[in-house]
């Protein structure tokens, strides 16, 4: 289990992290989301020891993380993270060796990952000669070549085409199923919702929500999002206290109920407008939750 305990970090006068704590269970796919500049990369860099926190600590399997433990982590930074002029195979062998594999094992691991990401024909090429998509495959191989016990990826899906997204999701899923916790940040919330069991939403250096995705959606439901369909009254828009009108979808009109909004009065108003064919409390999607917590001044979910 990976534990982040009350991480704090400032850059000069700017507070980048203001007490971030969460944990990732073995075999868990963990999504790390938040607006730009919220502190995602800073958090990941601290986990990887690339950055020192001002306060707090990172624990792995109950022990504080040091350089020897980190050698068994895998990390993929946001951009490249490869020597542009180094050959693919040499690069993977070098990184494997830095992580403690001996020469023979490093070469075997490099060859095997090159094959797995489908770059056997390009193994002797310089990284800069490859297309961006292929460079990303090398990057993935580089993060995995030493068989890490934990994988941390910063925006691994950005810039991938749909096929690339599927390939990468498959590889990550496989690793997680094998017991390796996988933490990644992403702006593609539908993807995070689909792939991850748990998420942390960060804003301005603080966690605004963390936990199992299903649990968060369930908690976010509590009569707050209502979908109503009224037959023969397409233009119907209720004007009630505590009710905000959302978008009109194919299955009806979405309404937000604030704390002072009353669902019973809403239903009465709908029935007065026409025949009600649909009335349900909706579970918000992750993106809706995200928008809510990020836009509503970080109100906790």
């Amino acid at each position, binding site marked *: 289990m990976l534990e982040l305990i009350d991480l704090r970090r400032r850059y000069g006068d700017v507070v980048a992290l203001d007490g971030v704590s969460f944990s990732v269970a073995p075999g868990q796919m963990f999504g790390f989301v938040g607006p730009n500049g919220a502190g995602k990369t800073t958090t990941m860099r601290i986990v990887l020891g690339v950055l020192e926190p001002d306060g707090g600590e990172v624990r792995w399997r109950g022990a504080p993380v040091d350089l020897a433990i980190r050698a068994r982590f895998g990390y993929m930074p946001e951009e490249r993270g490869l020597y542009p002029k180094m050959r693919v195979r040499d690069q993977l062998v070098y990184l494997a060796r*830095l992580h403690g594999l001996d020469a023979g094992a490093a070469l075997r691991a490099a060859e095997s990952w090159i094959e797995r990401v489908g770059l056997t024909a390009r193994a002797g090429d310089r990284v800069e000669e490859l297309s961006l998509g292929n460079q990303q495959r090398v990057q993935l191989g580089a993060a995995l070549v030493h068989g890490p016990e934990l994988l941390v990826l910063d925006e691994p899906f950005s810039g991938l085409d749909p096929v690339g997204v599927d390939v990468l999701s498959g590889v990550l899923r496989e690793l997680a199923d094998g017991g390796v916790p996988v933490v990644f940040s992403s702006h593609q919330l539908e993807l995070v919702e689909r792939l991850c069991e748990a998420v942390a939403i960060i804003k301005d250096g603080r966690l605004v929500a963390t936990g199992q995705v299903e649990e968060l959606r369930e908690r976010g439901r509590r009569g707050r999002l209502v979908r109503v369909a009224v037959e023969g009254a397409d233009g119907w828009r209720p004007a009630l206290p505590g009710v905000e009108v959302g978008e009109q979808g194919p299955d009806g009109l979405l309404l937000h109920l604030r704390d002072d909004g009353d669902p019973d009065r809403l239903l009465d108003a709908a029935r007065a407008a026409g025949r009600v064919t649909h009335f349900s409390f909706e579970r918000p999607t992750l993106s809706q939750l995200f928008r809510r917590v990020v836009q509503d001044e970080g109100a906790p979910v």
Partner: protein
Amino acid sequence: MSGRETVMLVARREFVERGRAKAFRIGTLVTLVIVALVAVLPTVLGVGGDEEYTVAVADPAALDVARAAQEDARAFDATITVRQLAAPAASRALEAGDVDAVLTTGGVRAKEKPDDALVDTLQAANRRVRVTRALRAAGVSGDELRTVLAPPPLRVATVEPVDEQQDERGGFAFFTVILLYGQLITFGFLVASGVVEEKASRVVEVLLSTISARHLLTGKILGLGLLGLVQLLLIAVIGLGAAGATGALEVDRDVLVAAGLALAWFVLGYAFYSCAFACAGALVPRQEELQSTTSPLTLLILVSFFLSFAVLDAPDGTLARVSSFLPFAAPMTMPTRIALGEASAVEIVAAIAVTAAATVALIPLAGRIYSGAVLRTGAAVKFREAWRAARA
């Protein structure tokens, strides 16, 4: 994995990757060709050897003067060939450039302004011949003539032993300066641009999640330094070999010791400058901005380069002595003095100690700046910020 193994892995990558880069190989080859040519060419072209003149004598009466000049020329390491030609033939030869001058009883005729050395020799010979004739006409006997006209020569003595190889050693020192200058600049820049490359490509994040900044920096500096040393050694062997084979330089024990010490000074100078260049690299986000942080260092090396030329002129002067104890200049001025044979063993040891001590003091400072700055992406990092960002 131990720190030593990590440093070796990093150093090996630097050595191998840089060493097999096409630009590096071509650069080395070009340098070797230039060094070999410079060592061989003076001998092949006859520059610096004996001066040779051909003088046509059209007037039999002037023959005595020509013969006398021929005799005198030997004292100046010059040879005068005398050709007796009829006046028209002499003019044609002069026109065609076959002879340097035409000598008559009354004068010297040349195509363009003749060499002063040749003219002076002919004038002196002319005076001697005329004086001899006048004395003989006045009835002075042959023995007396000889006593008057060929007195025993002045004996020349020096306080310090004369180095027969002085000119050659000057040339050797000159080359040492140029090579050290080139090598320090080149490998300083390789360190800086290597650091920027890792920073710009974010490889440094991956690396520093596994190894410490100290090990990464040490490995990089060691690997590139070794490459620079090997390259310099190759140049020294080829250059001295070519110069020795053609006789341009007598490669004796002193020269070999000086060459060995020059290599040692490269190591010292590189150790001093590479730390600073690594910081210069860590402070900027892109190769394009490297100029801004490296220019103070380039300037220091350039100043040392010009100091070395001053030292070439006065290897024993105050400037030479003072600059031997300035850690940034010593790696270039000291080898110059050593190559000229003007530095005492005590001075050499003391200068090495001073530069080494300065480097040892610089390393922890450089390490701190480097690790404080190398992970800061975005804009260029200010020196003070980098200093503060690094915690012990």
